């Protein structure tokens, strides 16, 4: 069944995806024409900042009507069942391809490169006249139609400015900003930007078209940003003998480090390009060739590099390591970090929810103690009659969703909401509810250390096994109409007198993966998950900050042999698993020597891992790894590892579908790779399961057990120093 927006636009095939948005082919049923439909990237759904940026793109684009700018036709918000709106933008469908794709087949002739850049400048000239700086000019944001028209798009991070430089305050410190390969020196330094920032990026664009490679390459984003600030580019003629000296001069003028020494407007830059195209007379100073006789290598594997790094502005590195490098470079850490990484992990504030037996009550009554920034309150635990039936009904709803999200019925959604409401009211009623809302408001308002606000993290401490067995991840707030685990990092804190794995004090972080798919069980897409994890951690691996290795083989002995060799910090297991009610124990399905299923109990897995004293995170991406019997404490496979000292265990409470498990792991590691704390990464991954799975209820299955409130995988300065 096709999706229809606003009752008018039918959404078709996916045309492309960027860091923040996805674009689909669409059809306007009213006017009978094809259109492009841009929506916020599913994994950013619910992200207020990303949504705000997207809405701003809608406004920016709508205000710009120019032949060289992709036209905006319409915009709206599609209401979701939870009351949220999903913003979308209806745009002109350009019959062509982006310059990034165009460049994959080779660089154009210099004349065409100049013409394309002149058209880009025409678009910029128009947008600047209307008070908008694009800030993200790059090949991926310029379309070239098959009829030869140039169209600039993606004004998502554009910013309004006043000619005197007193524009509205910049609020993008936590957002994706620019692309490293086209980043101006003033952006890299965190200095104010203006129209000349776009002139610099357009100069970089022209450079790339002429040379077949961007002006600066490097091993990582930091070094590229540094080169934009400090190094002069090699003239493009060094890479392309067809580029004349006067063209070199125009490019390098546009790319001058000082905005004062660049063309002062896109209009001036365009005029110069047109002069070169018509009569060859150039106002720019010629380049002295002797500067470039050494040190410039031939164009290397740029497109491979660009596809993995250059076009990705959110690639980040281990922050401590980055700070160290920036210190060496003598740059401002904050400014460069924000620009280069483009994303800063959110700060969190905790609300602890402890459920325990009341010592003054002989009747087994339980109490809920809440402690957060807005205060402390104790209320009785109020589990309603019929809770057991509601749990079973919701479990059936989640199970139906794992068969296929399309089978979920309104009755299923209602069952999950009803149980979620019961669980919410059990612990957050009366004064407890007021405290929750107070803490939430306080966290959102921020403070001196977190001026953009904090995420409120819920730290659950259900001490009795029967309470720990409840699916608290489903808690639903009737007032806001939202499940808490989709908006808050939600952690099950495990209190045990066992030492927890220490923080990792120096790179690399050793990650061990194991993928098992015994031949007598339904095959799993283990290779896809393996690739997704490798891809998510790819940049950190290339930077030498992470070392990812995989167990060769599928038997428990293969795992054991690998563990003999070194201490690992992260263990990721992909495979089948389950829970045996008759034994009260979970298991993972390894393979035997013949490739057939060989169940290894949770206790035995704990013994296999007993020598791993550095294990900070275990991801058990298998079915029912978080399931306990509700009668004894710590009876799940995940908790068996926690008892062995693993700091954090990410596990699955229910039977989980292969696609949902894979989506969860992919987004979890992608988020961790940009410095998100593990609990925040899990929250983001839940949302991805819900959105990518067409509203699948499987978002509730992942369960995060932690032994420490420090949730950064890489460790923090605070943690290292106690």
């Amino acid at each position, binding site marked *: 069944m096709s999706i229809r927006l606003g009752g008018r636009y039918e959404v078709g095939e996916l045309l492309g995806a960027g860091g923040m948005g996805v674009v689909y082919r669409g059809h306007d049923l009213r006017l009978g024409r094809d259109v492009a439909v841009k929506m916020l990237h599913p994994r950013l759904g619910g992200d207020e900042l990303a949504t705000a940026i997207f809405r701003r793109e809608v406004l920016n684009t709508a205000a710009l009507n120019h032949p060289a700018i992709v036209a905006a036709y319409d915009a709206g918000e599609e209401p979701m069942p939870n009351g949220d709106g999903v913003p979308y933008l209806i745009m002109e469908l350009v019959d062509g391809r982006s310059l990034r794709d165009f460049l994959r087949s080779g660089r154009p002739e210099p004349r065409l490169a100049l013409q394309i850049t002149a058209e880009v400048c025409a678009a910029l000239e128009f947008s600047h006249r209307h008070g908008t700086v694009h800030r993200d000019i790059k090949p991926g944001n310029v379309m070239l139609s098959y009829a030869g028209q140039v169209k600039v798009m993606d004004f998502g991070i554009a910013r309004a400015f006043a000619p005197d430089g007193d524009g509205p305050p910049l609020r993008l410190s936590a957002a994706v900003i620019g692309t490293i390969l086209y980043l101006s020196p003033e952006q890299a330094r965190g200095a104010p930007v203006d129209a000349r920032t776009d002139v610099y990026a357009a100069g970089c664009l022209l450079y790339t078209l002429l040379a077949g490679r961007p002006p600066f390459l490097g091993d990582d984003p930091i070094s590229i940003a540094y080169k934009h600030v400090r190094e002069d580019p090699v003239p493009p003629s060094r890479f392309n003998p067809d580029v004349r000296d006067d063209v070199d001069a125009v490019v390098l003028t546009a790319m001058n480090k000082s905005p004062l020494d660049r063309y002062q407007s896109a209009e001036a830059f365009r005029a110069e390009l047109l002069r070169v195209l018509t009569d060859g007379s150039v106002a720019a100073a010629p380049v002295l060739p002797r500067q470039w006789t050494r040190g410039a290598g031939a164009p290397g594997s740029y497109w491979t590099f660009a596809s993995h790094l250059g076009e990705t502005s959110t690639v980040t590195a281990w922050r401590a390591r980055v700070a160290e490098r920036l210190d060496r470079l003598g740059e401002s850490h904050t400014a460069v970090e924000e620009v280069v990484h483009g994303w800063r992990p959110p700060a969190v504030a905790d609300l602890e929810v402890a459920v325990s037996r009341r010592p003054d009550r002989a009747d087994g009554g339980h109490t809920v103690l809440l402690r957060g920034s807005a205060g402390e309150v104790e209320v009785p635990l109020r589990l309603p009659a019929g809770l057991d*039936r509601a749990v079973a009904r919701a479990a059936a709803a989640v199970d*139906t969703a794992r068969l296929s999200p399309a089978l979920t019925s309104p009755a299923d959604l209602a069952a999950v909401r009803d149980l979620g409401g019961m669980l919410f009211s059990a612990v957050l009623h009366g004064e407890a509810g007021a405290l929750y809302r107070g803490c939430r408001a306080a966290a959102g308002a921020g403070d001196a250390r977190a001026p953009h606000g904090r995420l409120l993290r819920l730290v659950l401490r259900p001490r009795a096994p029967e309470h720990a067995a409840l699916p608290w991840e489903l808690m639903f707030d009737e007032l806001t109409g939202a499940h808490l685990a989709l908006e808050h990092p939600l952690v099950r804190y495990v209190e045990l007198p066992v030492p927890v794995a220490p923080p990792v004090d120096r790179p690399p972080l050793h990650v061990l993966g194991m993928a098992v798919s015994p031949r007598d069980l339904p095959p799993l897409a283990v290779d896809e998950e393996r690739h997704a994890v490798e891809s998510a951690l790819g940049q950190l691996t290339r930077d030498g900050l992470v070392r990812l290795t995989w167990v060769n083989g599928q038997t428990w002995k293969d795992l054991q042999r690998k563990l003999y060799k070194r201490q690992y910090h992260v263990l990721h297991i992909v495979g089948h698993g*389950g829970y045996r009610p008759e034994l009260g124990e979970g298991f993972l399905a390894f393979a035997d020597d013949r490739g057939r299923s060989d169940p290894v109990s949770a206790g035995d897995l704990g013994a296999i891992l007993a020598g791993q004293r550095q294990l900070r995170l275990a991801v058990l991406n298998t079915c029912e790894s978080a399931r306990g019997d509700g009668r004894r404490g710590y009876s799940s496979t995940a908790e068996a590892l926690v008892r062995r000292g693993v700091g954090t265990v990410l596990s699955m409470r229910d039977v989980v579908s292969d696609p949902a498990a894979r989506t969860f792991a992919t987004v979890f590691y992608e988020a961790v790779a940009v410095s998100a704390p593990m609990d925040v990464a899990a929250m983001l991954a839940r949302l991805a399961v819900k959105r990518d799975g067409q509203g699948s209820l499987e978002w509730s299955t992942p369960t995060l057990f932690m032994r420490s409130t420090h949730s950064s995988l890489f460790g923090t300065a605070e943690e290292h120093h106690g």
Partner: protein
Amino acid sequence: MADIVSVVHFGEPEAAAVLAAGLGGPGASAPVVEAQRTRAVAADLALLVLVALPVHGFLKKLGEMLGESTGAGIAKLFNAAFARVRGGGAGRSIVLRDGVHGMDVELTADLPPAAYEQLGALIAAEAVTLRYDPAAGAWVAAGTPVDPR
């Protein structure tokens, strides 16, 4: 019936097609959906019939559609599906899921018509799993949830 029933199969498309045709009514077929693969070990489930009605209401309607007041027609329909399951359906089950209450009923290839008649007479409205006990000649609830209170 086609609008209130979906047949979900676990690698058994032929059996699903037979059952969907039988459940759809004259000239219609219930929708067939292939279940997503899971990371679970259990592999004894062949088909799952998801019904947007309580089970007793569904069986009543099904009996009416088949023109039989006894369980024989219903047993014949499910047995035809079991016959298309690999290995003749031995050791495999078809689950009937009440999409209103979340109740599962495990059907096996050897169920007598009387079991279907008993099932149609049960007014069950809880998310439990029912299995037929041939010794007792009755349906019993398995895995009763733990009351956390």
